[in-house]
């Protein structure tokens, strides 16, 4: 993150992994199957440097893990679901404000796939520009949190010029050797959702935040006896 001018990533507290622990994990890693995560094929980078690792559920839906870097010790900060315009239209109206459009992020060059040649990227981005996404972050690294604290944040997308600080964009351009201006031109021809961006999407233009409310779940356990077996 240093290149973007952001503060040094807060260090996650904790001891370095002990050799014993990592030995066991190497062994389990060799034995176990990882079908769900082996489906992850795509890496997108966007906005305030977050990295999306995406798997297709089918042609019209992807599910993505969001990390704060592209390194081995990257922090898992959230998830994003991406659906086609078609599927978005089937969502109840009360659900639609939780989803954001991708047209601007694609067309502006903000969203890109590190290491993938422009023409190949654009084949996929043509599709992404027509989609809607729903993103939650569970770890506010932008606030400097060293641990995932508090309640999830629902993330909005950039929807027009002037919402991103130019320093951030410049940092990304330098780090990944991309030019957003040039990409913007290359992506000129790409079009957004067929029916236009839905007026209920993007929080209906409002910011959204999540709050926890205490509810009765059941009667408390009379005596908290700590008997395990």
């Amino acid at each position, binding site marked *: 993150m240093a290149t973007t001018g952001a503060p040094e990533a807060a260090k996650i507290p904790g001891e370095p992994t002990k050799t014993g622990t990592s030995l066991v994990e190497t062994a389990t890693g060799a034995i176990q199957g990882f079908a769900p995560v082996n489906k992850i094929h795509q890496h997108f980078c966007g906005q305030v440097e977050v990295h999306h690792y995406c798997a297709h559920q089918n042609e019209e839906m992807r599910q993505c893990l969001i990390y704060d870097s592209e390194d081995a010790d990257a922090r898992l900060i959230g998830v994003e679901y991406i659906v086609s315009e078609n599927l978005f239209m089937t969502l109840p109206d009360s659900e639609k404000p939780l989803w954001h459009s991708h047209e601007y992020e694609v067309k502006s060059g903000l969203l890109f796939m590190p290491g993938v040649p422009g023409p190949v990227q654009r084949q996929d981005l043509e599709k992404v520009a027509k989609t809607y996404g729903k993103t939650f972050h569970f770890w506010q690294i932008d606030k400097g949190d060293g641990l995932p604290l508090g309640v999830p944040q629902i993330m909005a997308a950039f929807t027009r010029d002037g919402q991103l600080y130019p320093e951030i964009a410049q940092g990304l351009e330098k780090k990944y050797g991309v030019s957003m201006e040039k990409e913007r031109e290359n992506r000129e021809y790409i079009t957004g959702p067929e029916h236009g961006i839905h007026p209920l999407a993007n929080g209906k233009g409002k910011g959204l935040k999540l709050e926890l409310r205490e509810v009765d779940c059941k009667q*408390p356990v009379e005596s908290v006896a700590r008997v395990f077996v």
Partner: protein
Amino acid sequence: MATATAGTTPGKPMSLGQHILDKGTEMLQSLKPVKQMQQHVCTFALYSHNMNRQIETHHYVTRINEDFLQCPVYDSDTARARLIGIEYIVSDRIFETLPPEEQKLWHSHAYEIKAGLWVNPRVPEALQRPELRNLTKSYGKFWCTWQTDRGDELPLGVPSLMMSPQSVGSGILNPELVKSRDNRYGIDSDDLKKWRVEIEEPEWINPNADYWKNTGKGFSTEVEETEMTRKAPYP
């Protein structure tokens, strides 16, 4: 149940073109963060706001350091698995440093491990043992983002806070749920429980965790409208 018979996500099947694109980008990209997942854990979780709703979960665990793990959680272990949330796991050392308000959102792991509910499918019990010893003292915070157990074909609503199974009250799991998992993997949680008697119980489980146990209260998540900030938070 959300598991063996995973529902289908609506949408057209993957086109050949998309398959080729995905393969191509995969070859070009490093995907380092997702290649760090070293453990597949299968266990169970309960919705904090309604503990009668209980699900089987599949955690793909990455250890960041000795005291901190992060896991995407899926509803099965197949290639069609749906991503239903994220769990963070911290050691007791870290947990004790959290503010009490934060501790209320976390659950303990001792019971589900001791009871043989928490398993690493296909890993011999003896190999699993040292890690299980570590984890009995850990706490988790699990946000569920896709309620596939109620039949949601697409992820609807906002994340729900999840709790862990416990030996008492609303924390008791439906035995059918456990049996179905056990049958699928050819294991017997009751046998594992006997094996795990020798794993020591933690001397102390912080009573702020498993908040419902002392209070009978759970948490439900709600959306509120706020003023939108005009620019991205900087940094």
